[in-house]
């Protein structure tokens, strides 16, 4: 019996015994008698979760499996689910979702108007953690987000990855600060601006006022940064951040929805050399997918709209876009733009992408491990693997099916949400 006995709630986790159970169909949970006293540092299993299916987003789908959580981390993932232990049993478990475009900013109040290029600003300094939308996102299974500034500056500052729950302090929620630089093409970057006439003191009297101007500002900024990298005298505020993007240390996340704006972004990447480009709100990426393949660009898709036209620059998002891009090898992440409604939330977006042809496994990757990789936080979140943060979604049935829903969310090893009806 003892060789099939692993761990139980509150008991130290014994990794040696665990390996014996990999092929065991059933698991019984009881205290393991150990000859040696357990070391104080051994992780203590505090939560056991089992499901009919575990989608790890790390290559496996386990039919009937159990996840053991110790502290805030995943301590073990094993096949075999037993109904007689004290943990929870659900239809399916997936990693918590990662949304790279949640857009929980304070609308126009978060737009810095001192300049159209503000790479040196960090969005971590402007986050309202008391916004109700964090909690709503968490209920829908989004456990990590990249905090985006409003796209009304050409180069709009650095973005952080945060957890959606926990204590309302940046220290507690921050996964990583300044992971990526934000930029915007399209009409948003110049929205509301006008040239200097009439009211010269108006702060909207600033460049750029057209798509052409937006592109000019981008090119000038990156060329100035290239010059600053060679010549100390030409350094300017924030040049080193642009340099880090040019050197591929940080990805450049740029909003471009219409196909003309996606072209502009990719041509800029190829012209100045931006190793890591991610096009956000890339609704019309389906029109010229070859450009993304050629340039090695990744895409974050905006929420699917019932009639195809999305909110940003009226970009038409065909519902097979994710499928088309995934088939071509383009990294694709889906986003919710902060919606928590039944039809708007990130899980629904994954369902719509499946309606457009994506397989369930591909859809899971597009809301978990792919966005985590694009944001460079896949060492901590985005898949169910031993040692990663225990951020999990408990589903009533198959993930993203219209007939399934999120019945529980685990964040940093704690059950932060359960739903009974």
């Amino acid at each position, binding site marked *: 019996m003892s060789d099939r006995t692993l761990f139980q709630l509150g008991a130290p986790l014994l990794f040696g015994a665990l390996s014996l159970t990999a092929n065991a169909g059933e698991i019984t949970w009881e205290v393991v008698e150990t000859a040696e006293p357990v070391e104080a540092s051994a992780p203590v299993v505090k939560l056991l979760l089992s499901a009919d299916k575990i989608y790890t987003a790390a290559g496996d789908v386990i039919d009937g499996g159990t996840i053991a959580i110790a502290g805030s981390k995943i301590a073990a993932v094993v096949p075999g689910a037993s109904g007689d232990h004290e943990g929870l049993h659900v239809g399916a478990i997936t990693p918590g979702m990662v949304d790279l475009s949640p857009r929980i900013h304070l609308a126009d109040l978060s737009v810095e108007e001192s300049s159209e290029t503000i790479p040196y600003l960090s969005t971590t300094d402007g986050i309202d953690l008391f916004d*109700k939308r964090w*909690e*709503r996102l968490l*209920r829908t299974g989004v456990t990590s987000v990249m905090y985006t500034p409003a796209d009304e500056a050409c180069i709009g500052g650095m973005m952080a990855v945060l957890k959606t729950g926990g204590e309302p302090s940046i220290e507690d929620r921050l996964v990583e600060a300044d992971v990526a630089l934000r930029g915007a093409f399209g009409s948003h970057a110049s929205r509301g601006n006008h040239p200097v006439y009439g009211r010269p003191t108006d702060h909207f009297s600033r460049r750029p006022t057209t798509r052409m101007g937006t592109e000019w500002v981008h090119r000038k900024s990156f060329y100035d940064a290239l010059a600053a990298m060679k010549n100390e005298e030409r350094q300017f505020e924030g040049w080193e951040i642009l340099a880090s993007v040019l050197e591929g240390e940080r990805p450049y996340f740029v909003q471009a929805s219409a196909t003309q704006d996606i072209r502009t972004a990719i041509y800029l990447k190829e012209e100045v050399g931006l190793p890591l480009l991610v096009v956000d709100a890339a609704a019309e990426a*389906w*029109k010229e997918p070859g450009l993304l393949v050629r340039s090695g660009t990744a895409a974050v898709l905006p929420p*699917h709209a*019932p*009639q*195809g036209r999305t909110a940003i620059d009226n970009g038409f998002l*065909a*519902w*097979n*876009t994710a499928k*088309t891009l995934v088939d071509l090898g383009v990294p694709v992440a889906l986003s919710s733009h902060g919606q928590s*409604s*039944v*039809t708007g939330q990130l899980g*629904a977006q994954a*369902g*719509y992408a*499946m*309606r*457009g042809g994506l397989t369930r496994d591909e859809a899971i990757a597009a809301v978990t491990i792919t966005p985590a990789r694009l944001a460079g936080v896949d060492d901590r979140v985005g898949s169910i693997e031993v040692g990663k943060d225990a951020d999990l979604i408990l589903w*009533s*049935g198959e993930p*993203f*099916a*219209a*007939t*399934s*829903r999120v019945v529980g969310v685990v964040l940093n090893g704690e059950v932060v949400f359960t*739903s009974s*009806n």
Partner: protein
Amino acid sequence: MTIPRTLVQGALCASLLLGSLQVADAAAGDKLVIEAGRIITQAGDDIVDGVIVIENGRITAIGAAADVEKPWDAPVLGGPDFVASPGFVEAHSDSGMDRSNENLDVTPFLNVRDSIDPVSFYFEDCKRWGITTINVQQGNNTVVAGNGRIVKPTGMTVEEMTMRPNYGFKISIAPKGGKSRATQRQALERAFGDLRSELEELATDAQETKDYERREALAQGRDLEEGKAPGRAMTGTGWKVEGLENVDRAEIDEKILPLLEMVEGRHDVFLYCGAPMDVQPAIDFAAKNGLTARTTLVLDNSCWKAADAIAASGLSVVLDSNLVHVETDVVTEEETETFVPGVFAEKGIPFALSSANSSTNSLWFQAAVCVGHGMSPKDAMAAVTTTAAEIIGLGDQVGSLEVGKLANVLLLTGDPLDMTSFVEQAVVEGSVIYDRTKDVRNKHLYEGVEPRGAAAVETEEAELPSKDDAK
């Protein structure tokens, strides 16, 4: 005189110009067989490898392939890969109209017929997502609204679309824009109060005329000839005005006549409640005016709180499309979610679901969400098929696949509640009204195939026809 049908068809065939009309005519009158790997009947168990036989727009046989004889001359749709399901029934909608609200308070003399746009995108989307019966009523922003209509989403004129003309009235208990609840209730009281006093006045006048004639006859020493009463006595279970049989109905102002018909129980009424506090007044209003037997409550999603009152009243309800009610605690700001259909199911209140939009949040999705919250697929489907049909008085016509019912059948690529299923073909009264392979907009949305004319043609690559070709 009846013209033999074959003769008409022959004449149409003879005319090349009218060839397409002949096809439509034949489809409506002729036979059709639908085969499916699974038939969801909503009238009992599902049928595996089933066959539906349709003649003259109605189902004449349904069952397992082995048990049903297929007419040799009927075209066959579907196949083992398809799932057949009843067409969905929208129990209440204000979509498809030019504008859904009239700014006057009491307008029972208006008719949504004049507002329905047969080519509106809404009806096109209904076909695509399997809604085959729609009860179109004016919006909720009203006191007493115009006369509604039950339509199917096919046809180029309102008449062609109509299943049931002049059906139902919307009455709102919740305040319309610019009113408080007090002024709304007052306006509603006044509408029916004015009706009553006007009828009483007419009845009194008629009685006086009658009395005068009798006195005159008495004075002249002749017997009064008792003629046939010009009108008929008021019926109904609410209040009555005595002596209305003496009033010719044509004398009653047509602007209030529909209200009289409502009180007499001759119209279905859809009472809108915008908050739990509207529910009991709605029930009382219906009882007072004799509407109860024909009333359905149209509810805001907060109205689950008044579920006990609704259960006691025995009324059916149409639920708001937002199925989860979120309430924020005023002190702690904590949000509590309630799954609304679950409350009604638990109390045994018959409910129909409604669409929020005509596609992603359409009836199939509403039913799927209910399954996600623990309802059985059959019960969830009932709320968008049989229960909805019963609410609009078409329970014996649509909503399930049974012999004798109208042949409103969907052929789907999978389970109707599955996100990845598509309606492949939709059949209404035996005619195919939707075919996905010919749906240009669907191809645009799901395959990125732009409709002809939408994309700019790159001229250097396009082959221009030469003048020789034109000859």
